[in-house]
């Protein structure tokens, strides 16, 4: 079972986890990306996420299918927020259930990494000083999304 969706309202994480229940599963791994109150020395007050949903949903289904096929997990899902988010809100949720823990950790890590790099989702940061900007477009504009290594600036623990 694979699924990806966007949500314009706060995520009900326990409900998302219940959907991955499976009697064959010996474990469950989850990653939550949270909105952090600072980024690269700036105090962040809130975030806005915007997505090209029609394309993002297709690409996300490809990512989750890749993870399930590559690591042999039972179930995987991912939900990403759009709209205005406050400090501490869950911006993205990834959950994987599987027979053993190793493939669950790996599949979860794969999904969040690919989601960050491949999905057409954009983040606008608002700062204490009243400034704002689109991350990777106006802030750190030399960094493009089409690369293999990790971004060096995240405003969450992701």
């Amino acid at each position, binding site marked *: 079972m694979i699924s990806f969706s966007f949500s314009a309202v706060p995520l009900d994480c326990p409900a998302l986890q219940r959907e991955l229940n499976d009697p064959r599963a010996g474990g469950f791994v989850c990653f939550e*990306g949270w909105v952090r109150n600072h980024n690269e020395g700036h105090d962040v007050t809130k975030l806005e*996420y*915007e*997505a*090209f949903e*029609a*394309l*993002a949903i*297709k*690409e996300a289904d490809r990512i989750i299918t890749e993870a399930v096929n590559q690591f042999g997990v039972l179930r995987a899902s991912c939900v*990403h927020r759009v709209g205005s988010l406050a400090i501490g809100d869950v*911006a*993205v949720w990834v959950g994987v259930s599987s027979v053993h823990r190793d493939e669950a950790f790996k599949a979860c890590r794969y999904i*969040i990494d690919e*989601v*960050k*790099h*491949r*999905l*057409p*989702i*954009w*983040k*606008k940061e608002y700062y204490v000083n009243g400034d704002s900007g*689109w*991350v*990777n*477009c*106006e802030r750190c*504009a030399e*960094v*493009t*999304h*089409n690369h293999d290594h990790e*971004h060096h600036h*995240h405003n*969450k623990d*992701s």
Partner: protein
Amino acid sequence: MIHAPLYGLVLAGGASRRMQVDKAAIEYEGQTQLQRAFNLLSVVCSKTFVSVRADQVNDSTRIAYSQIVDRHTDLGPLAGIAAAQATHSNAAWLIMACDLPFINAQTLQYLIDHRDAEQMATAFRSTHDNLPEPLCTIWEPSSVAVVRNWIGIGQKCPRKLLINSSIALLEQPQSNALDNINTPAEHLEALKILQSRPLNINVQYFALFREQAGKRDELIVSVATSPALLYTELQQRYGFTLEMKQLKVAINNEFSEWNAALKQNDRVAFIPPVAGG
């Protein structure tokens, strides 16, 4: 007197750095520039070839043509001229760049009608600076040794060679016929002149583009034939700050190549650097 037979060569090996896409493959009215140039030369030359670098032999745009492979590297168009002359040294060569969207049969026929086989070359005078235009020129067999010597002394520029040689220099019958295109903006201008059937394209704007365009989507009537040209046009219109190389593009909700052919009523979205998660 009997002239040497006239063979044609299309120069299509350029690196196209400023164009950002392969110049030979860009299209006007459904034909690649390479195809247009090859067809024009085929009408007036007894044999026609395409000049390629060694790494372009199996390239999909070029593979279908009779090729002449460069024997020098880093020599630009002069490598193509030298390779053609080495392959058929007793022929005269009408050697033409592929990136001349306004070249036509009348201009080539005029060049041939006014060919002076007593000189080493027959060329047109540039309408921009009155100097010879080397990339639509007939090179007689008598130029073979001159070209070889020119390369031998470390020179690369065929134009400088023509300036320093005794050649027949003609006025162009049509003033813009030899204008070439080097940038997406120049390509777009050429399409506006050549193409009479613009497309209706639905463009979606996200994130920074939405803010800079001041709208989420719009219907654009455009002569652009590819997403790359459409972006060039919209960048001119809205002053988009992102460079094409930072972006991806989608047509009808799926990722696409920048030089894909746009069709009537396509939905196009330009994708700024992403920041999900």
